[in-house]
């Protein structure tokens, strides 16, 4: 079977594997949310000012909240199969549209964070490992630990105060300049300008993980036999580190990137709230506190698919990097 054929079979198999996990997520969260006190109608009534019980009963009936749970779940599943994620009670809009609007900002934040965190993590880990126990190694390790240990929101707020208020380098928050409404290329530059601080804040946290992980991976590979062989071949240290050790050391780091994705979407709640970044994290947070059940399930579904997709990409990338891995 051709390599591409094998690959597509592998992708299919992986997707089939993912289905039970995703379905399980939906069912578990569906019932878990029922445990939360109060429902969307309470929230809407509270917000609307004063609403008569009859009006609230009407609303519950309209949202189908008065149906027995299994029926509600059944309806949700049936719609989900036809890609209809149901209706957001609070925003009075189809969930799929709401979630897709927020998907782009989340992807922007996630991709830039992963690139920055993994990229610099590898570089710093490399530098630390090749200058073991020198001051460089210690400084990098301590810096990595401090950026991991400092509460995210504190870093975020300090950045706003320093970089946007005092130095006026970056806008304080939001994804776009809402006064100018740039178009085309200007808009891309404007978004990038807004993206800098949230990405820095979030990637500082993950940078630490990748730096330490890369350093450990480099040290482990450096003790392998093939490194002694390379040295016996008279190669320079630089070549040994950058050609031989680096490529082998990257493999576990790539896998770790895959595993991190799930927590990355969640972890960004604080950064999204501090920088008013319209991501899925914040949407999920608000959906939870307005008991917007359909919306929350829609977000869990989308993030589950996102995690599965990214893990798949990571695994395929891994099979490119490591010839020993047979795909399919």
């Amino acid at each position, binding site marked *: 079977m051709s390599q591409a054929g094998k690959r597509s079979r592998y992708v299919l198999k992986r997707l089939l594997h993912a289905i039970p996990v995703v379905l399980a997520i939906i069912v578990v969260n569906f019932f878990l949310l029922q445990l939360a006190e109060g429902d969307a109608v309470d929230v809407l009534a509270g917000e609307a000012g004063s609403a008569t019980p009859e009006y609230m009963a009407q609303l519950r009936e309209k949202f189908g909240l008065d149906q027995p749970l299994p029926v509600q779940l059944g309806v949700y599943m049936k719609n989900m199969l036809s890609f209809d994620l149901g209706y957001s009670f609070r925003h009075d809009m189809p969930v799929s549209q709401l979630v897709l609007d927020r998907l782009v900002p989340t992807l922007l934040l996630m991709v830039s964070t992963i690139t920055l965190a993994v990229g610099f993590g590898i570089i710093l880990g490399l530098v630390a490992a090749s200058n073991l126990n020198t001051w460089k190694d210690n400084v990098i390790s301590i810096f990595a630990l401090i950026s991991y*240990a400092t509460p995210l929101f504190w870093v975020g707020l300090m950045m706003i105060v320093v970089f946007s208020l005092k130095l006026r380098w970056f806008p304080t928050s939001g994804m776009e300049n809402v006064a100018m409404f740039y178009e085309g290329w200007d808009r891309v530059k404007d978004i990038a300008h807004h993206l800098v601080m949230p990405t820095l804040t979030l990637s500082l946290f993950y940078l630490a993980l990748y730096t330490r992980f890369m350093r450990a991976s480099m040290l482990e590979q450096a003790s392998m036999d093939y490194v002694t062989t390379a040295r016996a071949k008279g190669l320079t240290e630089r070549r040994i580190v950058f050609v031989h050790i680096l490529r082998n050391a990257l493999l576990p780091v790539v896998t770790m990137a895959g595993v991190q994705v799930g927590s990355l979407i969640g972890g960004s709640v604080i950064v999204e709230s501090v920088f008013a970044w319209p991501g899925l994290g914040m949407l999920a947070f608000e959906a939870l506190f307005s008991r917007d059940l359909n919306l929350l399930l829609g977000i869990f579904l989308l993030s589950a698919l996102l995690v599965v997709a990214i893990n798949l990409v990571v695994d395929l990338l891994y099979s490119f990097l490591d010839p020993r891995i047979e795909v399919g």
Partner: protein
Amino acid sequence: MSFWRRFCRNRSAVVGLIILAIVVLIAASAHLLFPEDPFKLVGQSMSPPGENGFLFGSDTLGRDVAAGMAHGARVSLLIGLIATTVAVSLGVLLGAFAGYFGGWVDDVLMRVTEMFQTIPSFIFAILIVAIMKPSINSVIIAIAVVSWPAVARLVRGEFLAMRNREFVQACHIIGMSDWRIMVREILPNCLSPIIVTGSLMVATAILIESGLAFLGLGDPNIISWGFQIGAGRTVLRSAWWVCTFPGIAIMLTVLAINLVGEGLNDAMNPRLRERT
């Protein structure tokens, strides 16, 4: 004791241990240092550090930030420890079964772990606290629920590796029960990675607690570093000290725990790696 000597060779681990010891000491003697209830309104509100007899200043209601940090240390460490213990025991149990028995048991348990890792972990923690209503127990449970999958994966890997070891096969031959093999033969041999990961998880637990508090989901009746950060956050620009000092305390403690964790890792692992 060669373990202790090897641990001390790692200078930063020793520094970490000292910091951690100080924090634990303060936590233990909080009621001696600050006999008053940390919630009590004891003086001029919003006074900067050093003034009006406040070492680290006072918050908007005139409560002593230093007292809050001392009493809060105990709570934050407790939250970290209990949550980690719960997560580790759950993770070890599931990881051991998955790794040891393999087959469909492994598949099912790994699907469950995968599920938990696919759900955005922080949001899931918020979900649990919201459902169980913000209290110290709900925070602990939330942290444990989102942290056990990492331990499960680790322990599964260790059991998979150990399962075919010859000394385990010897036990099979003499008819030792599976449960006994898992507990007495395999588990003792993968304690070191568990302890190291556990130590790092205490640090993450404290961070999650402060994150939850930041979003207003902390326990309203119990002082903890997270509580102080939540309380000080809205006045960050005018009274920076209210949440900065607890933030520093969190950073130092998490830093210390990580350094000790790395020290443990170096001290424990070479001995094992040399032999097997």
